[in-house]
């Protein structure tokens, strides 16, 4: 597959021809089920779009039954920004319902396969986007990352996935899961493409109050893999990871040393706090964000015998995991429990932020696993608690609002990709991409 950088040089005619071929390739590998629908939104460089990002005129459903029949009447800001830069939405990709999941198995459209092994999951929730890029069926894709939903599937599918600093990329038009954690980000074949796509979609947006009003500085033209950085490693933190991941961690450390970076050892607070703070915050926000799906104004309504019954029947269309998180969110917000759960979770969130701040006083980047292991076999991660624990290495980045990038390090004995992530201080995307490019080159 040609890179994004190369594709941007193609003429309109060449792009047209390319897309015709691409359609055939997608058809030929229909069993991958990465795309849920191949739609074309313009004549720019085609970018695959996760099914929770609004594209005017498209059916956009967040992988859910409840949004069947809904046609988005407006573009997300990232879609408009892409159009301005000569890119256009091409195909919507499969995802866990409302981005709640780590395997892309909970979608209304069925499972997506891992391009490296059809019996394995592509990760989630942006599993469709990761799979189509990993399978050579997309130049690049957009995903969204609330607790690792870009980085973990990128890692499982052997591609690059980047989560920007919270506030860097407009959330306007992103079907919300957890408002204070969600970010849209690029999923690409290499680090440079990620930087290019990041530059295109980032920037202040008045339509998103949480978008940060900072001078837009592009990172691509300043990419510098020769910068010597101080990079923290976390020996204790990785103890729970699989041997594959530990091996890749060692490989990456050697590569970084070889490239001239300074490696220092640091410690993170126990990740079990991350899990609690994350699942309380995310479900509290999600339960309200998903409350609008009542079937009254749009989407799939199931008529009941009265209003209450209609609410009940309509909202029973949510899948099990979504229902579980709605219930959990309602519980942690209910009177009598609010202080014990939600308020405490926000305090923990502050502690996690401080933990990172302290580390970033001394280092430029942190090297961390993305997932405890490589891609799971389909159906093997059915226990919700086990699934929540699989997010252990990604969620603190969202809780602290940091930028991070997952990139492939090596393949294990089963030929499955192993990825790791680099994490930077808020708004230090330049450093993040510089370090990631250096690591990519030195592997």
């Amino acid at each position, binding site marked *: 597959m040609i890179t994004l950088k190369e594709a941007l040089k193609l003429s309109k005619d060449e792009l047209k021809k390319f897309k015709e071929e691409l359609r055939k390739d997608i058809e030929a590998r229909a069993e991958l089920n990465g795309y849920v629908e191949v739609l074309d939104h313009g004549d720019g460089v085609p970018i695959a779009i996760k099914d929770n990002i609004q594209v005017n005129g498209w059916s956009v459903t967040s992988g859910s039954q409840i949004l069947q029949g809904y046609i988005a009447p407006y573009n997300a800001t990232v879609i408009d920004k892409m159009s301005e830069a000569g890119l256009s939405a091409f195909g919507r990709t499969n995802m866990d319902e409302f981005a709640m999941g780590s395997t892309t198995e909970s979608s209304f459209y069925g499972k997506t396969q891992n391009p490296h092994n059809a019996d394995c999951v592509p990760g989630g929730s942006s599993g469709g986007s990761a799979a189509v890029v990993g399978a050579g069926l997309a130049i690049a894709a957009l995903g969204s990352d609330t607790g690792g939903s870009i980085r973990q599937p990128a890692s499982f599918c052997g591609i690059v996935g980047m989560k920007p600093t919270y506030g860097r990329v407009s959330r306007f038009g992103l079907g919300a899961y957890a408002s204070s954690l969600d970010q849209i980000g690029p999923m690409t074949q290499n680090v440079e493409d990620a930087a290019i796509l990041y530059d295109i979609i980032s920037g202040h947006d008045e339509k998103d*109050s949480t978008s940060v009003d900072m001078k837009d500085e592009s990172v691509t033209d300043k990419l510098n893999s020769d910068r010597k950085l101080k990079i923290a490693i976390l020996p204790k933190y990785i103890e729970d990871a699989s041997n594959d991941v530990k091996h890749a961690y060692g490989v990456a450390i050697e590569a970084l040393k070889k490239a001239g970076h300074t490696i220092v050892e640091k410690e993170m607070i126990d990740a079990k706090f991350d899990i609690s703070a994350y699942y309380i915050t995310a479900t509290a926000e999600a339960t309200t964000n998903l409350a609008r799906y009542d079937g009254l104004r749009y989407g799939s309504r199931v008529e009941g015998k009265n209003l209450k019954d209609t609410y009940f029947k309509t909202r029973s269309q949510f899948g099990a995991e979504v229902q579980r998180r709605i219930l959990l969110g309602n519980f942690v917000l209910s009177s009598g429990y609010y202080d014990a759960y939600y308020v405490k979770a926000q305090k923990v969130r502050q502690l996690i932020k401080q933990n990172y701040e302290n580390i970033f006083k001394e280092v430029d980047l942190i090297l961390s696993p993305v997932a405890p292991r490589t891609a799971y076999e389909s159906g093997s991660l059915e226990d919700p608690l086990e699934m929540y624990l699989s997010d252990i290495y990604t969620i603190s980045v969202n809780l602290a609002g940091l930028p991070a990038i997952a990139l492939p390090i090596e393949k294990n004995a089963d030929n499955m990709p192993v990825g790791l992530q680099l994490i930077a201080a808020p708004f230090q995307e330049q450093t993040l991409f510089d370090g990631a490019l250096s690591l990519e080159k030195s592997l």
Partner: protein
Amino acid sequence: MFEIVIGLEVHVQLNTNTKLFCSCPTSFNHKQNRNTCPTCLALPGALPVLNKEVLHKSIMFGEAVGATVNRTSYFDRKSYFYPDSPLAYQITQLYTPVVEHGVLELDFEDGTHKTIRINRAHIEADAGKNIHEGDTSKVDLNRAGTPLLEIVSEPDMRSADEAILYLKKLHSIVRYLGISDANMQEGSFRVDVNVSIRPRGDEKLYTRVEIKNINSFRFIQKAIEIEVKRQSEAWEDGVYEDEIVLETRLFDQNKQETRSMRGKEEAADYRYFPEPDLLKAIVTEEMYEKYSKIPELPDAKRDRFVKELGLTEYDANVVTSTLEMANFLEEMIAEGATAVGANKWLTGELPARLNNGMTLETSPINSKLLATLVKRIEDKTISNKAAKDVLDYLFENEVSVDEAIDKLGLKQVSDTGAIEKMVDDIMVANADKVEQYRGGKDKLFGFFVGQTMKASKGSANPQVVNEIVKAKLG
């Protein structure tokens, strides 16, 4: 034996051009669901952006009631399902409202005063409207997302009268500030009343009952009286604990009763938490400087009218009770009417003629017309009595004051020559009465004045007639 405890929550719809969190217009007269967008329809991915105009108007209100205007306030989500609430949560300010700790002064007719504390005023989004047509229910979301300022008093009022006085004062303040149309019928000034009773001398607050959305001062007064009666009777019958529960009741104006809206067992849990889609609302020093310079308020205007215009305290209170009247008075004075004359006609004769829902604004008599009428009395062109006929005529006919006077032939005759001639004729025709008067029958003076007025068909200036009759009779 019981003391009444009343607290009031007033939802004031702010008259901003656009909605609270999107750029849809706030006018509702458009076709149903026309003034909507992804944000106020709660489409997937749409986000709220705070309309700064709402902060500006909140600052003005805070300043008007001597409150603290928080330089940083926050929004919270209040969850509940209802078809007119597209997000299924209301964006409001629970934990840190924009305005806190204000006061409102009540002045009673007997000259006493009372200070009512305002706990807070917070910004929140209005809901849409459900329309029920037979078996079907429809939702109109034109109003959804319109900014409200909810003004919450402390439970400081002790009678229905005090509550009404507070509401009228509050109403007049927001109208003076120009931050709301405050139209009760149209729902831009909505009142929820919290009522409880307690044995006199008891400091404890007992169970409060909320009565929702009553749309006139008169009905609010009635609703409070009826609810107090219900609670007092329950107490006296020994069933207070069972019958008076923390709940919301509706006032039924036809049946003259309050009725439970939802049972205790269904008490709502709103699951409030901070709104993650909005950052803190910041009032900058610059913004505060600009919007804390508020127009003259009712109390200040009243004091000025007493001091500068020579109105009595009572008259000044009445005329400043609404901005429309106060402005009308000032316009009349600018037209050359005296303050006392203008006030008398503005607060007496004019309102007496406003029938069938006609208001100061819809009446055909504008300030210039009424001022001219008063001036014609003051320059003795017409008598006070004739002016009333002129005013009646002006209600029916679109003419100037002078045209009306001519038409009605009511111009006063002050020409002494003409009046002297009339008096002479009357004295000749009534020579016997002249004799009797001169013989000491003083009462006959009125007879000569009356005859002269009659001869002039009422157009003679009575004062001039008086003087001439007196001189001629000697």
